[in-house]
């Protein structure tokens, strides 16, 4: 299992990278961490004519944290994001989801932004970008532009980005006040692709009643989606909310596929179970914050 022949460039600046991508045409592909791309090459599921390795491009390896959210540069490895306490304080879903991304040896090399650009519906960070209502910044020959998550994901392993483009960062907005989060997966082996995963955000009002409930799933559907589950529990006191009802609602909203790993029915069952479990956890976290105010 070896990649088909390709050409290789490792530009030292973003402008150079865009110039090479332009010159090499549609067959050129950006290489960052390579933890998803290289298996595709080895299995000959993809055969780009040219790999443009951006690992030498300076300025892409920082995590910037403000009160508004977290900006993750294109060369930030999963391991670095997982260890970033400031990022986890502003948006706890980042560390919670990243802990579920593959195994440590793969997290050491793989990048969060690359995982998003790869647009795999079984990727954790695509779901987190959606759930946090995030966006990516894309460098193009005509200048940088921002692409909201809704406009980014077109299908499995397919984004709306065409022509010479490098995703330079992803922005994850901060967790709103009085909110808690949780993330959980079911996988054959911890670190393997999830059979099903769930990320949730629960927001309370000042009287500890449920104000808003949102969920996004992993390995369910062709592109990441966010489901609003508020109606199942709206206005209920946090301590007596019926999370099973929210799980039941979630099961009716998702449209999972059957594949070699699991049937659609089993995935729908897992959506219900994981939703109920993660919502209870996220709600408890939110409740502790409101009590602490």
């Amino acid at each position, binding site marked *: 299992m070896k990649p088909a*022949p390709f*050409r290789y460039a490792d530009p030292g600046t973003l402008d150079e990278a865009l110039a090479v991508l332009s010159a090499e045409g549609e067959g050129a592909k950006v290489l960052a961490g390579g933890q998803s791309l*290289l298996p595709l090459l080895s299995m000959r599921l993809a055969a780009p004519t040219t790999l443009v390795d951006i690992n030498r491009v300076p300025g892409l390896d920082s995590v910037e944290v403000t009160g508004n959210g977290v900006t993750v540069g294109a060369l930030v490895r999963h391991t670095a994001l997982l260890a970033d306490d400031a990022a986890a304080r502003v948006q706890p879903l980042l560390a919670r989801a990243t802990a579920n991304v593959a195994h440590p040896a793969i997290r050491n090399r793989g990048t969060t932004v690359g995982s998003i650009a790869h647009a795999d519906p079984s990727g954790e960070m695509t779901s987190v970008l959606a759930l946090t209502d995030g966006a990516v910044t894309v460098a193009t020959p005509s200048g940088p532009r921002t692409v909201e998550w809704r406009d980014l994901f077109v299908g499995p392993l397919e984004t709306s980005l065409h022509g010479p483009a490098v995703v330079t960062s992803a922005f994850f907005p901060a967790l709103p006040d009085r909110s808690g989060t949780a993330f959980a997966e079911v996988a054959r082996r911890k670190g393997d692709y999830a059979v099903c995963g769930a990320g949730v955000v629960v927001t309370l009002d000042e009287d500890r009643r449920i104000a808003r409930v949102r969920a996004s799933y992993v390995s369910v559907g062709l592109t990441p989606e966010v489901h609003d589950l508020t109606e199942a529990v709206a206005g209920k006191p946090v301590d007596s909310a019926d999370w099973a009802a929210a799980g039941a609602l979630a099961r009716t909203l998702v449209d999972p596929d059957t594949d070699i790993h699991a049937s659609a029915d089993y995935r729908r069952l897992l959506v219900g179970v994981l939703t109920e479990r993660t919502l209870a956890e996220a709600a408890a976290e939110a409740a502790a914050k409101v009590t602490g105010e």
Partner: protein
Amino acid sequence: MSVDTDRTITVTVNGVPREATVPVRRLLSDALRHDLGLTGTHVGCEHGVCGACTVLVDGDPVRSCLMLAVQVDGHAVTTVEGLARDDHRGGQVLHPVQEAFRECHALQCGFCTPGFLTTIAAGLEKRDPAAELTDEEVDDMVGGNLCRCTGYANIKKAVHHAAAAMKDDAR
């Protein structure tokens, strides 16, 4: 900007600078075995699942089947051959993890062993040796490496054994 099909790279492998001219599509795992003759790195699944080919790049465990050889140009790679230390008497002493694997019978066929050894050596060296090593931490450390014959009981025992030895060494 050069766009190449072959490149000459310089890599520090197990402390020794090595040079090789490779096609750019050469995986790091194949470069180590075929271009540099270091067959200690085993190639299992070739798509990042099994962990047998794990080596250290600048000290961090990575899958050598998921990197191109050209990507380690100018970097340092440690393979299983580089874990043992010089004993300054013309021989070598095994790394505490290697010693623990022998002691605890943590290998049987040995195919997965190089990946386990590099992963665990880096994992233990990066942590505070005085801190208690939990089973959960050990599971997380070795969970990305597949062993299909020895079984994980003795491998996990060896991790604890090595951690204890390294704790004693640190005193």
